[in-house]
């Protein structure tokens, strides 16, 4: 009971933290998604140099820990004269990661679509770009929704790492609160429940998106 009494004063701080967590997740997911499209196109249809560049980027980002990347961006880049605040540093890190991972999932979606469709598109006079834009991408995106929604869930979880570079997000607020009031166990259990709730909301939203974009008769399960 004392715990909840203490919590009341800190609610605005928690609200601010929650807002930052949500903002980090959604901005990173949205920009990451947009950035992942050219990455996939470069890997699948690009010239050799672009392909190598895109693949190299993805391998580098996926091959190093997020925390190390955040340290590099937040503490390393200012040494080159590029001073950024923690939120922006975290955002850059999350965007890079989310672009790399989403590109990988989107690629899976693209690869699930047979090459005949590309040929069919050519044969009715579409250009390569048109074929990708109107025929391949709409299907590939639908294929990739479950994997992409997983990626957003990962993002929600990993925004907590931003605490270590002093972004005042949800976990940071919990840490302040717990150090002030000594309710460590209660605080972190509560915060854990908040993260679970966020993830539940994200999965419901992506389920709804999948349903909304569902085309009756366009059943893809037999292709998997």
């Amino acid at each position, binding site marked *: 009971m004392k715990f909840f009494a203490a919590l009341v004063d800190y609610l605005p701080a928690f609200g601010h933290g929650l807002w930052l967590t949500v903002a980090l997740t959604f901005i990173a997911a949205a920009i990451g998604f947009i950035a992942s499209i050219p990455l996939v196109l470069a890997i699948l249809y690009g010239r050799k140099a672009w392909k190598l560049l895109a693949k190299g980027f993805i391998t*580098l980002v996926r*091959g*190093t*820990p*997020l*925390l*190390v*990347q955040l*340290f*590099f961006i937040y*503490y*390393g*880049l*200012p*040494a*080159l004269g590029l001073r950024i605040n923690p939120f922006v540093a975290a955002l850059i890190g999350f965007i890079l990661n989310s672009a790399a991972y989403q590109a990988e999932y989107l690629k899976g979606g693209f690869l699930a679509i047979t090459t005949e469709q590309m040929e069919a598109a050519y044969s009715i006079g579409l250009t390569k770009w048109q074929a990708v834009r109107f025929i391949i991408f709409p299907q590939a995106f639908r294929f990739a929704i479950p994997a992409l929604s997983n990626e957003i*869930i990962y993002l*929600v*979880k*990993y*925004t*907590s*790492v931003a*605490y*270590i570079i002093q972004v005042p997000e949800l*976990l940071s607020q*919990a*840490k302040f609160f*717990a150090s002030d009031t000594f309710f*460590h*166990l209660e*605080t*972190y*259990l509560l*915060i*854990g429940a908040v*993260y*679970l709730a966020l*993830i*539940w909301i994200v999965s419901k939203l992506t389920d709804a998106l999948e349903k909304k974009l569902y085309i009756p008769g366009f059943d893809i399960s037999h292709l998997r």
Partner: protein
Amino acid sequence: MLESLVYVLTNFPLLLKGVWIAVLITVCSMLLGMVLGIAVAFLRIYGKKPVRKAVSVYEWIFRGLPQLVMLFIVYFGLPELGLNLGPFLSVVLALGLCSSAYQAQIYRGAILSIGSEQMEAGLSLGMTKTQTLFHIILPQAVRLSLPGFTNEFTIVLKDSPLAYAVGITEILKYGRDLIVTSFRPFEIYLACALIYFVLFQLFFYLFKYVAGRYTVPGFLINE
């Protein structure tokens, strides 16, 4: 530029000292996750209905909790209940619990993709249930779960630097100590990233090699 390179190279052995602890955290967490994960996978498949339900809630919770929050619950929260594990065990427990939920799914998928007919075939040959499990099902399930296991291992390896948050001296902390005296964050963190990258590739190809070594010719798995 050259000066930076010389600096990083001369201090590289210090950073490498952190590799040992990073690998130790990863391996211990993976082992804990494996033991729990296998148990959870079996309960999820062969358990009674309430057990299956409970186990799926377990999976949902530990897959949903951020690793860092889990670490804080264990490291800062459990001492309130009189259980003070210290930083190393806390990291292993936190990462292990989170990993167990993911590993459970990997093993469950592997066991389920070996049809129940094989169990029946084993029984009809006069083998006991345990014999069939150990001689027929598991050798195949282990092979099937290797790609997922490799993936999960690299994920845990990439989560291991979170140990920094509870003051464990791993690669990042050694790097930080160097920066305090030299103020070269750019080079040092780049070197840290490089070390993790090499470690990541090393384990990735190690597991790939192991998987290749244990493939059974003609035993094709349709994915």
